């Protein structure tokens, strides 16, 4: 993890879990795996706080524990995972996707799971039903079975998965091999292997048979006291629903595959037209189940199959479909490739190549926005032609020599372009050496990714700064809103309401409005940068997988 990543993780932890967890989390990120004692000693926090923070981190999957490196007797060690914490940036996108696919119920289920980390199906279903009931019209309640069915659908499509059962990391227990849930066949070695992924368990996506009969409860304001007392009583004796000990978590990888597909489809729609994007969408939908997450391209699909699976609203003729497919194959973005001639032509969607091209387009757009379109032309030229001398750059880009030199120097100083020396003689005499400019896509993408992390961290810090500056004003406005709400609930006269509203003066209101505007802008900027982060991360991960 780089310094920028650690800084961003720290800020995200602070916003969502508080400063104590931030301190523990950043310490774990910077120093790797550590045991409890060292963490307490080095962070200087109290034992209780450290324990509680570690519980929170483990509960949300940001940290894992394993038995120590020195063998079964040593204390448990905790590692924090940087990637997992950075996912917090993407939570709104996950929730929104669930809403588009499975409606409000799906949205609330994913939101609950993201807020609580690992939860059981029964508790999630109950909470979601209650929340849905709150928002429904008077007298209507949400049935548990509806929520359960949405939950099952989410599990079937692999958006949710079970948390892997943990090995017993007891210091006093003898590490019984039967308890370590490794895949069958591995020897009972000391638990030093990487933690098993959730997918290595056969029951990862199996919905337990849960007996949940009931409807959501609406919380009425007048019965608040009673509700709290009955809720406390309910906590004392939890009802078991047959799924004790089975915890669920959100499967981020599946969401990422979905986002990747969406990005490809919208790219095709932007470059070509709606019909082509529908064709690509159909192809991706057909290969959803057959394609592994790390696959370079989808399984070959014949043109006949595609024709049959097109949505009925798009009744295009067969020859037109063939023409569209040919267009897609010939497109320089290489989204679709031809894999054979049987069945009217076998076509695949080139996933990795599409990601690489999208990343390339992102880099070009960054150069264009930062340095102007002529510098972007030079950049594109170098991407295409690999190595060029300065004279050749001037000629190919059709830019006067002086300006081309300036632009090249600027790009070089920003590290977007590299210089490659090719000597003619063993001593690197400058007059007898070729100096070639070149662009390497992968390292440049990595550099840009780090710069994105830095950007988001700066945005978050600025937002926190703005909030802190106007803390008094915000508190005052919150108090007044609370007073207004209570007055309205108890049915006050309009004069009283206006009187309370006037407690905020006009310039203060204006200040609040500008503050609100700034915070909204900073937040949406974070969301937008996260889209770029996703694209670059997917590209970099795809190159890792294939290499």
């Amino acid at each position: 993890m780089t310094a920028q990543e650690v800084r961003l993780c720290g800020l995200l932890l602070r916003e969502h879990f508080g400063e104590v967890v931030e301190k523990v989390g950043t310490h774990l990120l910077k120093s790797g795996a550590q045991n409890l004692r060292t963490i307490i000693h080095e962070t200087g926090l109290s034992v209780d706080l450290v324990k509680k923070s570690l519980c929170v981190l483990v509960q949300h999957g940001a940290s894992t524990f394993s038995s120590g490196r020195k063998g079964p007797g040593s204390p448990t060690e905790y590692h924090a995972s940087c990637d997992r914490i950075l996912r917090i940036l993407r939570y709104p996108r996950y929730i929104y996707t669930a809403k588009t696919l499975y409606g409000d119920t799906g949205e609330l289920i994913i939101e609950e799971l993201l807020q609580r980390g690992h939860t059981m199906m029964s508790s999630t279903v109950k909470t979601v039903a209650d929340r849905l009931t709150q928002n429904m019209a008077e007298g209507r309640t949400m049935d548990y079975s509806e929520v359960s069915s949405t939950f099952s659908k989410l599990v079937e499509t692999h958006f949710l998965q079970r948390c892997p059962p943990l090995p017993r990391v007891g210091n006093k227990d003898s590490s019984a091999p039967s308890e370590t849930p490794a895949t069958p066949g591995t020897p009972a070695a000391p638990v030093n292997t990487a933690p098993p992924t959730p997918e290595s368990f056969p029951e990862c996506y199996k919905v337990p048979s849960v007996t949940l009969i009931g409807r959501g409860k609406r919380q009425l304001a007048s019965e608040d006291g009673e509700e709290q007392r009955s809720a406390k009583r309910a906590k004392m004796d939890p009802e078991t629903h047959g799924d004790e000990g089975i915890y669920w978590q959100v499967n981020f990888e599946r969401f990422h595959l979905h986002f990747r597909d969406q990005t490809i489809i919208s790219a095709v729609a932007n470059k070509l037209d709606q019909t082509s994007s529908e064709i690509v969408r159909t192809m991706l939908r057909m290969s959803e189940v057959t394609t592994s997450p790390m696959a370079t391209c989808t399984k070959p699909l014949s043109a006949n199959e595609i024709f049959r699976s097109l949505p009925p609203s798009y009744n295009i003729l067969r020859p037109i479909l063939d023409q569209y497919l040919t267009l897609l194959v010939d497109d320089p973005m290489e989204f679709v490739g031809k894999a054979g001639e049987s069945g009217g032509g076998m076509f695949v969607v080139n996933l990795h190549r599409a990601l690489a091209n999208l990343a390339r387009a992102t880099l070009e757009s960054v150069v264009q926005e930062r340095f102007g379109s002529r510098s972007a032309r030079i950049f594109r030229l170098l991407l295409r032609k690999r190595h060029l001398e300065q004279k050749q750059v001037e000629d190919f880009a059709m830019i006067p020599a002086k300006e081309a030199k300036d632009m090249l120097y600027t790009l070089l100083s920003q590290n977007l372009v590299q210089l490659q020396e090719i000597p003619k003689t063993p001593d690197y005499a400058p007059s007898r050496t070729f100096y070639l400019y070149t662009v390497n896509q992968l390292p440049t993408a990595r550099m840009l990714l780090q710069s994105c992390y830095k950007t988001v961290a700066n945005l978050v810090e600025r937002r926190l700064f703005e909030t802190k500056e106007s803390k008094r004003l915000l508190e005052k406005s919150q108090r007044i809103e609370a007073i207004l709400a209570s007055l309205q609930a108890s049915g006050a006269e309009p004069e009283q309401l206006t009187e309370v509203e006037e407690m905020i003066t006009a310039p203060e209101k204006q200040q609040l409005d500008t503050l609100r505007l700034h915070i909204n802008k900073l937040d949406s900027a974070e969301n937008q940068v996260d889209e770029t982060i996703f694209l670059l991360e997917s590209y970099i991960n795809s190159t890792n997988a294939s290499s």
Partner: protein
Amino acid sequence: MAARGRGQRTLSFTMETVKGDAPPPSVQQPTPVFPVMEQKPLPLTGGEEAEYLLALKQDFRGAMRNLPCFIQPLVTHRDVERYSDKYNRSEQMDKLLDWAPDWKRFPRELRVHVRKPARDSVSAAVQSPPPPQMKKKGVKDKEEVLLKLESLEKKEEQETSEDEEGETKKKQEEEEAEAEEEYDEEEFEEETDYIMSYFDNGEDFGGDSDDNMDEAIY
């Protein structure tokens, strides 16, 4: 960017000898904090989806603040004593007690036994000792007991001092009462004439080793 100066210097050397044109002058000081940008950045993409995502993000942040996993340390800066502190503190304590994860999924050493401080504690002067509560919970490990004793003592002090207030004492005296109480406790604990600080009853022994039960204690 530390290599920038170096890079430019070698460049100027090479380019000069090759081309004969003057290179751009090298920069000798750090760049300004907010440099003037030649190209203004693009505006943010608006639209329904972006606004909905924004609302989701802010709601999620707000919701996380109210969950029990948002940990705020109990110590707060007390620039001015406020009457509302009495009520705010009890709120925070409730939140800590709220969350009960499934302890089977966590390593044993992380288990924190947070118990509600005794609401029916006796009068201010005598602090009801934790051992009766210990026996109720049936904790056997001595070091865990000692550790919890320490943390509980602190919590009970706050609780009993709050109870004092509820009776008659004013808020200003709470500070003094706390300080006094610590001193008073020691004296009243055994109701002897001997000063407690001279006597070491071994309570501190073992409490410093926190909770790492694997370490041998000599």
